[in-house]
């Protein structure tokens, strides 16, 4: 599907390469470059050739860098993985306590305050948050660098916090809803009647049950983050897969884009599979019912 869409979309990789300097080129040069890139071959031939390569673990050669697509993706993946892990950790550290607090203090001022944060988080776009964070924490307070090198912890902090900001808001709402739902269950009332403390009930019963529905959401977020987050990566000059993908799309680097699409598909499928399996492990009732 993506191969067809790319072929149908306007724009010619040969032109994009040859005219990147803002000059026009001769039709002969254009044709020669199309031949060199194999763009003069029929669509089906190109697709079958690509597919055959995929089965052999060869995703082709990038038009622009002339390097194997796999090598390019491997080079950019660690930065994306770092950002993914860091933003998920920050998100969980924020969302779970905030969600619980919001549920425990439902319709009281801590709840209103946290709900205000969640409204803000889901409303404002990532790029704006990123630029505001840069302006405040990097430019005014000099706590972190403006330009990330993709290396140190301080470089990682701001892009991770930016990504975590919107995610935290979304997850806080989910945690709040899930915890509230559990708090209204009979077993909570029963436990409290038996004299168990609120904290004990929360930790032993409510939280494990409330966290389960979040796993699907977490899987989707993980997939999306591992695919690279283009806007944030560009703002923070973060050398990740999102940056690579945007560059490839702009340059009409078809093998690179195709490799990226394949990666995204695989990562989503794998994570969905892991999420499905983990349901059964974390809640044996699901495993039994499916049998």
């Amino acid at each position, binding site marked *: 599907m993506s191969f067809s869409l790319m072929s149908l979309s306007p724009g010619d990789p040969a032109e994009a390469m040859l005219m990147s300097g803002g000059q026009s080129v001769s039709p002969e*040069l254009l044709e020669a470059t199309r031949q060199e890139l194999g763009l003069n071959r029929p669509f089906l031939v190109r697709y079958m050739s690509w597919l055959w390569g995929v089965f052999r673990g060869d995703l082709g050669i990038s038009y622009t860098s002339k390097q194997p697509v796999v090598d390019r993706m491997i080079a950019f993946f660690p930065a994306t*993985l770092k950002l993914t892990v860091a933003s998920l950790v920050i998100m969980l550290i924020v969302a779970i306590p905030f969600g619980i607090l919001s549920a425990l203090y439902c319709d009281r001022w801590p709840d209103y305050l946290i709900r205000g944060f969640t409204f803000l988080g889901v409303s404002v776009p990532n790029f704006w948050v990123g630029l505001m964070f840069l302006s405040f924490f990097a430019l005014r307070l000099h706590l972190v660098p403006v330009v990330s090198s993709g290396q140190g912890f301080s470089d990682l902090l701001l892009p991770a916090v930016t990504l975590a900001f919107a995610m935290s808001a979304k997850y806080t709402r989910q945690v709040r809803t899930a915890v509230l739902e559990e708090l209204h269950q009979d077993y909570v009332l029963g436990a409290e009647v038996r004299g168990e403390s609120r904290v004990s009930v929360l930790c032993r019963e409510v939280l494990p049950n409330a966290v389960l529905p979040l796993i699907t959401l977490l899987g989707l977020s993980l997939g999306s983050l591992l695919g690279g987050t283009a806007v944030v990566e560009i703002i923070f000059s973060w050398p990740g897969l999102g940056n690579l993908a945007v560059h490839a799309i702009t340059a009409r680097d078809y093998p690179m884009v195709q490799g990226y699409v394949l990666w995204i598909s695989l990562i989503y499928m794998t994570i969905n599979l892991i999420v499905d399996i983990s349901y059964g492990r974390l809640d044996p009732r699901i495993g039994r019912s499916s049998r």
Partner: protein
Amino acid sequence: MIREHRFFRFVVVLALCVMAFSGPKTASASEKILRVGVTSFADTLEPTTQYFSWVVSRYGVGECLVRFDEKGGLKPCLAESWRCSDDKKSWIFRIREGVKFSNGREMTPELVKASLERTFTMSKRAATAFFKYDSIEVDGQNLIITTSSPTYNVPGSLAEPLFLIVDTTVDTESFALEGPICTGPYKVVSFKASEICVVARNDHYWGGPVPFDKVEYKVIGDQVTREMALQAGEIDVAYNLKSGNAATFTDESRYSTLCIPALRTTLAFMNQKGFLGDKILRQAIIRALDRDTYVEVLLDGGATAGKTPVPPSLDFGFEDIEDPNSFDPDSARKILTDNGYKDIDGDGYVESPNGEKIDLNFVIYDSRAELGIYAQAAQINLKEVGIKVTVNTVSYETMLDKQEAGDFDLIIWCVLAANTGDPENYLREFWRTYSNEAPNSNKAGYSNSEVDRLMDELSTEFDPTKRRDLVIDIQRHIVDDAASVFFGCEVTYLFSSSKVTGLKIYPIDYYWITKDVDIAD
């Protein structure tokens, strides 16, 4: 309880992963380093691929036989001098002695020959866009390039970074990722595409002392981030910022600002195969456009108003050529009315003399913000004189497709007018009559036999003064024929820390960091 522990273990493991991935920063306080913020451009450092040689030149790594000065004139570089033979078919370059590549190998005329031949072999652009040669020979310290026909601008062509001189005796396969071995003040020590390029002092540099141990070119794709990086002192020089950033850098004690009219012209071709085949309508369009206001107010001085094909940054008569269609909306309305363009259906827009509704398809592309500003301003100005324009924004690649197919009434293009210091190719390509014999020529349908004749004369003329006169004549005809709309000529800005000294800005931006760029203590 077990689940609870699992969850917290998971969080701890994730946190440890972050810590493990976060490596320490490496920096040496004793090294003198210049940090430059750039936009992503080169995917490899192989100079014969695409326009990547421009980057190798800008990074202070590669040098050519000839270079441009701040006015676009030619200056000796790796060639001390050059001359043309009497039959005008051979160019003799005297190769500078005592030049070494960054690996210590001496640059001989034989190696220069090998380098140029490599470029012609590997780059299709070299073979088609500059000159065709019959032979390259070495005679002592001279390099003799013989062309198949008299070719005026061989020295200017060889100043294009595509022809920078590399050491062909080493493993040239490594150039793409490790950088080519060249003769510039710096040599590549590490390169990560879309991330960073670090160059270090070339200890064998022929041109004198090189001030920095290292120069780091950090790719900062976002313009606002690049601006903030300079403000925060994380970079010393920021390239590719625009006039809109100037307000941030007004404090002269902290920042320096350089600006120069560049060699780029933003123009709109008018497709003469449709409504715009009528010169009256083309004249009315140009007269309706308030280009001075566009560049001074809307673009905040980020360009100079256009008038002629060749921008004022090159000395080809910009001031001397009078525009018969300068801004005059009343005159635009009058010539439309006088020539049968009337609003028949009362919608505020004129119909053609034979009653057809006019709605001009103005194709622009989205990668340059100023193009949208020009197009929207033009749309409003043209509405005021009763000409309907629909702006169609597409990607750069789609714009190229539409230009090729002639699918436009007006199509905008920000184009480099003279990458070799001479506008002959540019003029020929866009305004010489299209023919199958010359498929490289314009797709807007403009044709003027006198322009064609002058262009043919230009191609065989070697006298610089006569060439200048010919170029001015050609431009005068194009302007008189109202062939294209010349919106503006881009102004290039360069912002740096005020401590950086020796930075220069060139109309042809092939040179960024040279041996003269230093930093005050």
